[in-house]
């Protein structure tokens, strides 16, 4: 049954990637930004029309779009994502390196926001309509309407500029390479961007957990437990917790797309050299191979999140585990 589940998911992923690849190729090809201009950049005046033609020919820009797409898709299928024009390096190695830098940021923010959001949601749900609940809700609603980059800027001003506790930029001290920096230095640089991301990321999971907790506390099993003399705290921890935890974990895995988008903005504020910042550079400087590579990579990233959510649901929830054929 688990193999069938995996097969269906793999098939879906392949279809999805094909669709996303086709659509993004069409979008990029219809862009009025000329790839040769974008590549040449400031040297535009010093380059002759002949040289431009040579570049265009080498990149196959003189061919019709359909043929270009065919060749590109063929190369992609064999794992060749092309060479990034701004880094002059294979796209996959750029993405790999940058993603590792981003990964720690996203992992820290993801776990922080998950744990805190779940805790706050439980508290708010258990103390429904108290002052505490109202403040938690107000916080969550405010954060849902607050742009990530602005929170980052405020934190940057308070903790880096005014107090000087955290560095102003980058993922490691300037002048050092990633390998030379100590773990403590890396963590020190990581802290503020990660907190920015979690402050925003808490909102959704808190509100969701709160709803589910209230629902669980009104259920028959909770009322029965209360009739037997169980306290509210006892009900929350011994009865409601498990029922609330599962949808929360699912939601947290399904929010990887939001996390990625948040990372793009946070990395821009803190000049953190991760995949998010690379995405912005690729978009602004017209690095088409890199941009397409990142689009596909982030699609797989989001898909993995949703896949994990489904998988955990099926593995953990006894109702789904027992129902035959429920895995699909």
């Amino acid at each position, binding site marked *: 049954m688990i193999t069938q589940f995996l097969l269906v998911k793999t098939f879906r992923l392949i279809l999805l990637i094909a669709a996303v690849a086709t659509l*993004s190729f069409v979008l990029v090809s219809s862009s009025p930004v000329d790839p040769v201009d974008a590549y040449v950049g400031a040297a535009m005046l010093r380059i002759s029309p002949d040289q431009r033609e040579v570049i265009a020919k080498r990149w196959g820009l003189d061919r019709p779009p359909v043929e270009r797409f065919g060749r590109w898709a063929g190369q992609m299928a064999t794992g060749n994502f092309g060479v990034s024009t701004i880094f002059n390096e294979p796209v996959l190695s750029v993405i790999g390196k940058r993603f590792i830098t981003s990964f720690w940021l996203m992992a820290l923010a993801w776990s922080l926001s998950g744990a805190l959001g779940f805790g706050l949601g439980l508290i708010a749900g258990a103390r429904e309509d108290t002052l505490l609940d109202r403040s938690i809700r107000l916080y969550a609603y*405010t954060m*849902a309407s607050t*742009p990530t*980059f602005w929170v980052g800027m405020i934190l940057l001003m308070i903790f880096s500029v*005014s107090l000087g506790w955290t560095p102003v930029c980058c993922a490691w001290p300037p002048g050092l390479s990633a390998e030379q920096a100590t773990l403590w230095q890396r963590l020190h640089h990581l802290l503020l961007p990660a907190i920015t991301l979690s402050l925003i990321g808490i909102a959704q999971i808190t509100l969701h957990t709160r709803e589910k907790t209230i629902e669980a506390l009104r259920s028959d099993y909770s009322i029965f437990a209360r009739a037997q003399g169980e306290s509210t705290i006892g009900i929350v921890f011994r009865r409601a917790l498990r029922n609330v935890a599962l949808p929360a974990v699912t939601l947290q895995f399904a929010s990887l*797309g939001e996390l990625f988008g948040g990372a*793009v903005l946070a990395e821009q504020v803190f000049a953190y050299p991760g995949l998010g910042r690379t995405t912005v550079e690729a978009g602004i400087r017209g690095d088409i191979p890199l941009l397409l590579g990142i689009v596909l990579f982030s699609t797989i990233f*989001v898909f993995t999140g949703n896949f994990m959510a489904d998988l955990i649901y099926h593995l953990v929830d006894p109702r789904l585990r027992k129902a035959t054929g429920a895995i699909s």
Partner: protein
Amino acid sequence: MTINPLALDRRTRTMMVILGCLILFSAIFLGAWLYGEQGQVTNLALRKLPPGWDQPFGTDWLGRDMFARTIKGLRISLEIGLAAATCSAVIALLLGLAAATMGRIVDVAVTWLCDVGMATPHLVLLILISFACGGGAKGVIIAVAASHWPALTRVIRAEVMQLRTSDYIKLSHRLGKSPAWIARHHFLPHVVPQFLVGLLLLFPHAILHAAGLTFLGFGMSPHTPEIGTLLAESMRYLTTGMWWLAVAPGLALVLSAMTFDVLGNNVRALLDPKTLRE
């Protein structure tokens, strides 16, 4: 429980919230119009002033009044939000109705389109579309407008699907009413509230995404300061301690987005017969 004689019922309260929001938004548009060119006027004698009586939001490094710039930036944000949310909501309405009423193949196609539209992180999709449009203000509007429909499409599709299996629709069929008549007289009244609420709740998303996109440097020239552009510019002056450049415009953006959120949720409560009388 004592009943406060001054407490308003939900309907009146919602109406007042809606009125308040409308006043706020007209104030922004009116303010932007009254300020005219003032946000662009440079006055080097009044450079880098912190907030005070004469300039509530302070002035920037060229002596431009940040309050005027913020109001004008908000107006542009609201315009982008309005255009983008309307486009997305109309797309969602058409696709959702088509998916639910035009047979299995269309349904599968629309559901698939929604999946594809939500497959990449939203911001990456925005960057991609903005790049495809060649950047600029046009790129931002098209990107935000063309990427917000999947969630609402699903809601509308589910709503109509549910309606289709209800008894009174089946009865209407048996009575010989044409599909078009049923769509007009039975589906539309149900979908319009969903559509309106969806439209209002798309607004904050559209505004925030547009601000994010301009913050990253896509679109919007420095001459038409959108809030995202203002904040991106203020980044350069953060280390010199000019905190007011970032705080005030950002707060204004958060408040506008929240107002739309409150507005949308209140309208939803008002339009839903289940919560109307609470």
